[in-house]
């Protein structure tokens, strides 16, 4: 059962009257009850024009609690809105600003009703002045005890003006309502991959469309199961006369049953993406939730599609422009074990495209920030001294992710030249502005250096790649190969820096990486750049340093917390390796490579999200010509060297 409650209020007893709210509610109602557009049940759905608060409450009760399982509930409101004590209220005919709690409809009450009635999906659209103020409410409403435990798999909300803005009206109707109706009726393109649309997708589209206008839509929500349910997708090629209800019912039902036990965990994962986000716990929650869908790839792909749409919107609230790309990347990495299914590959390709676009956008933003402010990479939240440790880490990440953006283009349908250009400019800017902080500090930097160096080499940036390799190798030699462990606790980073300063590492021995992957990365880079003459003479300074490379048996578990089917190759300078040539000779001739561009993209992103693994295949792709010359050089060096 698909039910709609559409409210528009023009006439106010205690507030100024409006001109177009009733028309907006009427247009929305008439559009959505059409079987081929919204498919909402006209016999149970309601249109209320300038109602009293009692009429609104009565209609809500009738729609949500008159009986029958509700598949989709959509609530639309156009009129005055107001915020009191952190709560958002929708004002109707008899509402008074000095008594909102008793004379207006509060958003939190609607959420409680939804939670109790538990429709499979609920959509709320609010086109009202100050409707952005409901963000304040959401912090409270998002608590999992209200939504997660209530068995409500999805609630989506789109509000089309910010807290301090009036909702714009035009002779043709409210700006926000018009934008939504354009998406519903096909005048604006959202996507063409599914037969039905989710309100989150429409919200994202109108956010982009209204960017720069006075309207700043608030989009919030997560549909955890089933198909998009809001309305038909006019851009999808399907029988235009087929009712939306049928399209929704034709969707595989496995996802809801499988995901339901994980609602609470997924809501928490969803709320985390705009704040202090931990890729590992996020990824573990998602992987655990979609695990039961391994045998129903359609449903699995659908869940990830829904999550990607909703999580990306949420991530855009973070003040880290890379968050959106990271969240998409984490979802993509969760698909690695399931890429053998064609349906999952299709979803993965869409997520690669979304990640690539988000990454490119973030990299461009970063480049603009660095060009405008040479200290843009310093963390405003840190105590500054901590940036002696975290700035070199950040520089590695920035270069790694920007280079990853270019790699992702290879696997997506986006031309990589733009991403490569941004990466090149960023690399050059960092080598000039942040040269002092291009330091090897932690072994957790290794995957980022690997992606950045291999891309720079692949692009023929010989000077930049040599400079970067040289700076890092020098830094590594200066500390005698004593890098912090990838998982060093935050409170040990100060003692580590003090040890770096004094050269006495006794107090931090437990927190040193041993063996390290950073040296392997630099030697591989040296091989690809044919830096034998530069690196070999200094290798003795790392005498006794062990270094490692983990080569996976395949990439299906490359996003897992630990992998156990691959090869853990370890060397020690002064025992196995005296020159770069020794590494070339002993590096395995064959190693597993990603089976597709999408798998390569996901594996690269896994190494950037979980920096205790390196995507070595990027270097192997570079070995074709330079390796031959380096190998020959090494061989000739050996023939000249007396046996010792």
């Amino acid at each position, binding site marked *: 059962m698909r039910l709609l409650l559409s409210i528009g209020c023009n006439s106010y007893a205690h507030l100024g009257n409006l001109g177009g709210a009733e028309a907006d509610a009427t247009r929305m109602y008439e559009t959505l009850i059409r079987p081929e557009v919204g498919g909402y049940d006209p016999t149970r759905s309601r249109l209320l024009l300038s109602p009293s608060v009692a009429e609104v409450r009565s209609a809500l009760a009738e729609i949500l609690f008159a009986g029958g399982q509700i598949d989709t509930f959509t609530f639309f409101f156009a009129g005055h809105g107001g915020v009191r004590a952190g709560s958002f209220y929708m004002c109707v005919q008899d509402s008074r600003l000095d008594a909102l709690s008793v004379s207006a409809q509060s958003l939190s009450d609607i959420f409680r009703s939804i939670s109790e009635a538990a429709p499979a999906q609920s959509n709320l659209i609010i086109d009202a002045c100050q409707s*952005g103020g409901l*963000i304040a409410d959401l912090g409270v409403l998002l608590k999992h005890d209200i939504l997660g435990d209530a068995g409500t798999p999805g609630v989506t909300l789109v509000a089309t003006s*910010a*807290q301090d803005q009036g909702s714009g009206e035009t002779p043709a109707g409210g700006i926000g309502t018009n934008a939504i109706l354009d998406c519903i009726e096909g005048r604006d393109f959202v996507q063409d991959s599914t037969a039905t649309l989710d309100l989150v997708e429409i919200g994202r589209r109108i*956010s982009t469309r209204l*960017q720069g206008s006075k309207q*700043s*839509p*608030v*989009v919030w929500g997560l549909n955890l199961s089933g198909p998009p349910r809001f309305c038909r997708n006019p851009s999808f090629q399907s029988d235009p006369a087929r009712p939306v209800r049928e399209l929704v019912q034709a969707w595989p039902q496995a996802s809801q049953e499988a995901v339901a036990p994980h609602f609470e965990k997924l809501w928490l994962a969803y709320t985390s993406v705009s704040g*202090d986000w931990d890729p590992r716990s996020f990824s573990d929650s998602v992987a655990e939730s979609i695990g039961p869908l391994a045998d129903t790839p359609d449903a699995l792909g659908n869940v990830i599609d829904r999550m990607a749409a909703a999580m990306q*919107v949420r991530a*855009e*609230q973070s*003040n*880290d*422009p*890379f968050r959106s790309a990271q969240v998409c990347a984490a979802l993509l990495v969760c698909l690695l074990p399931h890429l053998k299914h064609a349906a999952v590959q299709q979803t993965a390709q869409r997520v690669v495209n979304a990640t690539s676009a988000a990454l490119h956008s973030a990299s461009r933003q*970063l480049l603009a*920030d660095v060009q405008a402010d*040479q*200290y*843009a*990479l*310093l*963390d*405003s*939240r*840190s*105590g*500054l*001294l*901590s*940036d*002696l*440790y*975290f*700035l*070199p*880490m*950040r520089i590695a*990440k*920035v270069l790694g*992710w920007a280079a990853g953006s270019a790699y992702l283009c290879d696997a997506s349908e986006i031309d990589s030249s733009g991403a490569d250009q941004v990466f090149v400019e960023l690399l050059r800017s960092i080598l000039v*502005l*942040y040269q*002092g*902080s291009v*330091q090897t500090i932690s072994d957790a930097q290794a995957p980022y250096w690997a992606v950045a160096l291999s891309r720079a080499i692949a692009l023929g940036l010989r000077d930049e790649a040599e400079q970067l390799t040289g700076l890092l190798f020098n830094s590594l030699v200066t500390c005698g190969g004593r890098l912090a462990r990838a998982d060093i*606790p*935050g*409170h*040990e*980073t*100060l*003692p580590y*820096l*003090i040890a*770096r*300063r004094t050269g006495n590492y006794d107090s931090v021995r437990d927190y040193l990486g041993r063996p390290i992957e950073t040296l392997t990365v630099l030697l591989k880079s040296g091989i690809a750049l044919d830096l034998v003459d530069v690196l070999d003479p200094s290798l003795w300074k790392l005498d006794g340093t062990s270094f490692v490379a983990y080569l996976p048996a395949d990439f299906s578990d490359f996003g897992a917390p630990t992998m156990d089917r691959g090869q853990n190759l370890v060397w020690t300078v002064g025992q196995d390796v005296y020159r770069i040539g020794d590494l070339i000779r002993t590096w395995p001739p064959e190693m597993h490579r990603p089976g597709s561009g999408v798998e390569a993209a996901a594996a690269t992103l896994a190494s950037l999200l979980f920096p205790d693994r390196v995507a070595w295949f990027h270097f192997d792709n570079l070995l074709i010509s330079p390796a031959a010359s380096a190998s020959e050089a090494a061989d000739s060096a050996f023939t000249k060297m007396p046996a010792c």
Partner: protein
Amino acid sequence: MQPYEKTPRRNYFSDPAGNTGFNEAVAKYLGSLQKEIVAQYLSPENTLRLHHGNAWQNPANPEAFGNGMKEHSSSTVTKFQDIVDHKLELIDQCVQQLTEGMHQQFAQMLYSTVTDACDRSGNVVHAKDRPLEDAFIEMVEKVPFSADRHGVVRLPEVHAHPEMAKKMMAAVENAPVEYKQRLDQIKARKSKEALEREAERKAKFVSYGED
């Protein structure tokens, strides 16, 4: 979407947990250095830790304490460029500046508290216009010695500017034998008095040292 509570400055790849850990380690490190500074003046046994309120009151001795809480603060300036240049010596510089500032303020507070207490009690010795050794002996005469519960007498500590300390020691060492004998007698008498006071104190218990 433009959330309206967004901070104007973007933070790239911030590590809040790592930062918190680092800053806690800095605070702990500074705390340990501060403890070392305080220990130069006060033994840990004589240090009371305040959990509630902002001053001590001793109902049995209303004259005691009464100075209330004194705030010490110290700041240091770090240039962005020095961080970007990865100057690890900044850690030493910052720590040194902060601890020096705290040390100075603590010492100032301690001596002003002692000065106030001496001024109030009249326990003040002036060295002007007379031999330093005479002032010294008057000072020893005025300071009550204390004995601990094990019967060990603690001689008073002398805190002085290094120059003044040098002069004082020279004056005492170069004084005639009679002066030194007199000083020893005062020390012996005051030690005896301290032990007697300690015995009197213990005698106020119903029993002391008995199981």
